[in-house]
């Protein structure tokens, strides 16, 4: 909200510049969104009247005007002007010869395209009064010709824009509220003392629940409106000129002057925070007999033309003001067009009320209308302030519009409980970590209009109605702390027993896997947790096992991912164009919806290896498999077991004959494989793409269980033998290995390594290194030869041909 700096200074009895205020508010109250300077109009600019307009003979875009700045309208100036928004009779600002507009713009008598010009008609921005450059500034017809513009717009001012915290809408969306802050920050005077001419009365002891004969108000439920005040004002002169000071303040706060009745309601709202609405009383009821209004929920089918010309259809979520015939206003948001005030208005029905914040919010959201009024009602205005605003408005109506009060009605259905909080003084230091003198505490609270009763070091603090945000003593301490200044709190070491951090295995394994993968040349990426129908379909996933966003930002981000790989794969094509081969991984959560609706979250480690260049069949996959084997061996001291993947639901995106389950120590930890060929094709991935998905929890479980012990180093020399063989296609390397291990004494076979694979058509050839060793003795050549002989026999029986 925008605040007029001179207004705040007047209310708080301070003399601060906008910059000084900004510094104080930043540290003690609210964030400052900006400072604006309103310059005073340049001297030399006076009010003039356009007497004649003719086309410029030599320029299509220019006009020649005859203007007078002489109250007697005798002296006439010729001025060339380019703006199109002027007509004869307009009252406009005229910069006379010799006026300095901007630093370098001196108005001189000159000839423009052959026509004499003795001055300049000005737009708002040219005067430095605002940003408007749409045309010449139109002034009120009532302003006497020849008046200096400085007199019309007054001296310059400053505007400070504050970002009011959500909890402080009740008190701080008003000049009084912010002036109170200022008083409390500067340790100045209590607000309301030494009341100036333009400042509001401080109300107390005002009679509530006023009865009235002519005004009948019916509130459907106190939930909709706790309090409604209506005042019937008569003999209103709505053509009266709004006083300069009020106009200036409205302008500073970004509010346009409309007519005196509307200007007063706006002014009082800016001052007190209570939105008011002025109805033309004659348009809502019979002024001499009865004005009867209902405050109720909207009904289906009811329509209303708003002040801004927009037509809305209301429903039961809106609060409306209606008479017996029609809906008159969208309560708290905007008035209706037909019941609004105009220059002809002579009777005003002034409304000051409390409306349910939640309803107001729903209404303004559904109808997409934000007004100064809805903004405040939505933040729960102070029902006690309703009458203060009325008193202030009446005072202004009487003084500036010649009005008198016909009748006043106050329906106060529910009062809020007043709050008192017990604040033990020592709590301040124990929460803030700084010692604030007791007298200072009391004085801050008093300046904020809290009433304080002191009983030794126990304070009873009575919270004013406009501070509904205050609930417990911690809230009071916050007030004291911020106004005293958080800068006074010195950092202080936290003294606690030294305790070493505990790192859980899940966290640890993620770090270790990440370290190992980057060590093997894998880059880490992060992708979104969402995908759309297309992905679900392509990967053959079940929609039902996904969680769906109710309000996705786009349809392709509709589901919470249940797999880590799809979104990662989407990053492959663009990267492969630039980098020939890529190795990437992502560690992130996937989410599954169980049949009973419960949420299962798993942390997955997705790995992709992809090469643009053609490779031997299986090369990419075996390299990825090897990387994973090496990493697992380094972390767990053993290699994983693999077996053909079990195609449960949700794994159909793997290639049928090139994919495997990976387990370690009997625990399934994930899958490695290539993708279903149709996915590779549709996603335009290189054929040489291998993927893996590992489960963090399984790895963490194994990691926790892991214990490794040292094996003594061998003391006797090893003996090496190689075998080379031709193996029928259907026999796997694992089967050959198992057969060899079955024959040779486990104690003696130190290692078995497949060091060469050669495949052609229906035939494959394996070559193995065998290392023999015993812990007890040197093995004899004969022993080993015997073992080898038995291995040959065994392999032969499987149809394997040994190459000797």
């Amino acid at each position: 909200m925008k605040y007029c700096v001179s207004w705040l200074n007047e209310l708080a009895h301070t003399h601060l510049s906008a910059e000084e205020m900004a510094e104080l508010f930043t540290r003690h109250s609210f964030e400052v969104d900006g400072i604006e300077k309103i310059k005073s109009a340049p001297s030399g600019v006076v009010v003039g009247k356009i007497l004649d307009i003719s086309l410029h003979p030599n320029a299509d875009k220019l006009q020649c005007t005859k203007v007078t700045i002489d109250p007697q309208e005798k002296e006439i100036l010729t001025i060339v002007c380019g703006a199109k928004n002027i007509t004869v009779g307009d009252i406009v600002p005229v910069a006379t010869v010799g006026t300095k507009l901007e630093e370098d713009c001196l108005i001189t008598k000159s000839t423009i395209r052959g026509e004499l010009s003795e001055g300049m008609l000005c737009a708002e921005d040219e005067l430095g009064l605002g940003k408007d450059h749409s045309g010449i500034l139109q002034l009120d017809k009532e302003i006497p010709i020849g008046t200096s513009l400085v007199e019309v717009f007054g001296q310059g001012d400053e505007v400070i824009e504050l970002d009011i915290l959500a909890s402080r809408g009740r008190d701080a969306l008003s000049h009084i509220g912010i002036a109170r802050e200022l008083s409390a920050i500067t340790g100045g005077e209590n607000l309301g003392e030494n009341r100036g001419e333009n400042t509001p009365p401080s109300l107390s002891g005002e009679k509530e629940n006023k009865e009235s004969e002519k005004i009948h108000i019916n509130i459907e439920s106190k939930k909709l409106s706790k309090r409604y005040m209506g005042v019937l004002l008569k003999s209103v002169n709505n053509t009266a000129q709004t006083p300069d000071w009020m106009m200036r303040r409205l302008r500073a706060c970004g509010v346009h002057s409309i007519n005196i009745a509307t200007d007063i309601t706006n002014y009082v709202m800016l001052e007190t925070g209570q939105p008011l609405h002025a109805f033309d009383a004659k348009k809502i009821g019979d002024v001499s007999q009865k004005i009867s209004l209902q405050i109720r929920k909207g009904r289906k089918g009811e329509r209303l033309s708003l002040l801004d010309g927009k037509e809305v259809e209301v429903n039961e979520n809106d609060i409306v003001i209606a008479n017996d015939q029609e809906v008159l206003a969208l309560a708290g948001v905007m008035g209706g067009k037909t019941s609004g005030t105009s220059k002809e208005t002579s009777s005003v029905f002034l409304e000051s009320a409390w409306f349910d914040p939640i309803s107001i919010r729903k209404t303004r959201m559904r109808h997409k209308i934000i007004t100064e009024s809805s903004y405040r009602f939505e933040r729960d205005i102070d029902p006690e302030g309703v009458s203060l605003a009325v008193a202030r408005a009446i005072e202004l109506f009487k003084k500036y519009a010649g009005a008198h009060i016909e009748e006043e009605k106050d329906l106060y259905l529910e009062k809020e409980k007043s709050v008192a909080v017990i604040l033990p003084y020592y709590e301040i230091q124990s929460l803030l970590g700084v010692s604030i003198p007791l007298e200072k505490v009391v004085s801050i609270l008093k300046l904020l209009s809290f009433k304080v009763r002191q009983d030794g070091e126990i304070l009873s603090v009575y919270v004013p109605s406009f501070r509904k945000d205050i609930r417990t003593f911690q809230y009071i301490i916050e007030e004291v702390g911020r106004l005293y200044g958080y800068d006074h709190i010195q950092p202080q070491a936290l003294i606690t027993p030294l305790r070493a951090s505990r790192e859980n295995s899940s966290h640890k394994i993620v770090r270790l896997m990440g370290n190992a993968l980057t060590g093997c040349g894998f880059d880490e990426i992060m992708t979104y947790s969402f995908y759309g129908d297309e992905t679900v379909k392509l990967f053959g996933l079940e929609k039902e096992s996904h969680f769906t966003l109710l309000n996705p930002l786009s349809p392709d981000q509709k589901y919470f991912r249940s797999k880590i790989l799809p979104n990662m794969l989407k990053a492959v094509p663009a990267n492969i164009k630039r980098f020939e081969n890529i190795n990437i991984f992502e560690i992130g959560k996937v989410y599954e919806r169980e049949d009973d609706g419960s949420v299962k979250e798993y942390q997955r480690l997705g790995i992709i290896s992809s090469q643009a260049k053609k490779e031997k069949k299986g090369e990419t996959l075996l390299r990825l498999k090897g990387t994973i084997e090496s990493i697992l061996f380094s972390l767990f001291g053993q290699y994983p077991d693999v077996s053909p993947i079990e195609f449960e639901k949700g794994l159909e995106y793997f290639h049928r004959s090139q994919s495997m389950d990976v387990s370690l120590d009997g625990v399934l930890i994930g899958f490695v494989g290539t993708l279903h060929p149709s996915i590779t094709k549709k996603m335009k991935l290189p054929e040489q793409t291998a993927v893996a998905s590992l489960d963090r929890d399984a790895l963490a479980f194994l990691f926790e269980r892991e214990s490794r012990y040292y094996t003594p180093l061998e003391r006797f020399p090893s003996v090496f033998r190689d075998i080379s063989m031709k193996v029928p296609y259907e026999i796997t390397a694992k089967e050959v290995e198992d057969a060899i291990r079955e024959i040779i004494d486990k104690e003696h076979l130190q290692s078995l390594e497949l060091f060469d694979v050669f495949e052609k058509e229906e035939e494959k050839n394996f070559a193995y290194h065998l290392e023999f060793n015993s812990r007890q003795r040197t093995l004899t050549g004969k022993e080993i030869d015997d073992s080898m002989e038995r291995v040959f026999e065994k392999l032969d029986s499987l149809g394997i041909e040994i190459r000797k």
Partner: protein
Amino acid sequence: MENIAKNIEKDLDEVRSLEDLERVRITYLGRKSFLSENLRLLGKMTPEERKEQGPKLQAIKEHITRTLDEKKYALEQTSFDWKKDALDISLPGKKSPIGHFHPITQTIREIEDIFISMGFDIADGPEIENEFYNFDALNFPKNHPARDMQDAYWLSEKNEKGEKLLPRTHTSSVQVRYMQENTPPFRIIIPGKIFRHEPTDASHEHTFHQFEALVVGDDVNVAHFKYIAQEFFSSFFDTAIEIRLRPSFFPFTEPSFEFDISCAVCEGKGCSVCKRTGWIEVGGAGMVNQEVFVLAGYKENFYRGFAWGFGVERLAMMKYKIDDIRLFHSGDLRFIRQF
């Protein structure tokens, strides 16, 4: 005897090969050499003579040995043909592939390590959260705008208990979960991914990372928060950082603060990074609202604690001068490989 040293110098000058050197060695140190003969005589001397002659002879022997070794080393050095073996060392090295961690992971690890060094534990919680832990338990009123569909994502499905679900909008959702399982005193950090219903542009993302720190005990106050925040940021930016607290409002803390750090770039003098204010806003903080303790099952006004949170992306963007937040989730390796 003294001449030996001079003679050997002269002889070595003529040595051209290792064979020449061996001949010189035999001449001076061989069994029949003058020195060896004299050494053999030592045994026949009186103890007094031996005491006088022994060390002398020994010194000469050492001198000769050293001189010969030096000559040998010099001969070996010149025997290589360095030129023939010359290699163009400007050829590129055969690189080992080493991968890159995502800058967010690097930032998170760095943050975690600093907190771990101050004795914090790391806690974790679900990313799909129910309404209770994300909002109710943090004292958000039922109609708080943060619950709006404009601000938060919501899920179509409810969980098995019929509770409304949403992708957590902050890591604060873990606060009450943790407190229900643990008894103070404790100090924890909660790093994690969070989601907001926010259309993306260069400075907005719907998916990003946050850090939450929570310290609860018998005697924890704002001054302690300031201290820990100052320690953390000074370590993170590797320069002395000051903390400035400004009033704010969060339903789950009371008092609540926005906290600024003194600009690490200009050291508070004012620059483009801090928009000439000398301060950079980095997050929100406050003393845990007693309502939250009560919702977690603690007695009211029994413990005190502070909570603070900040965005990881923002810190990473400051640290690496990244100007587009969307790069983090782009999967673009041209970006990742810079870190």
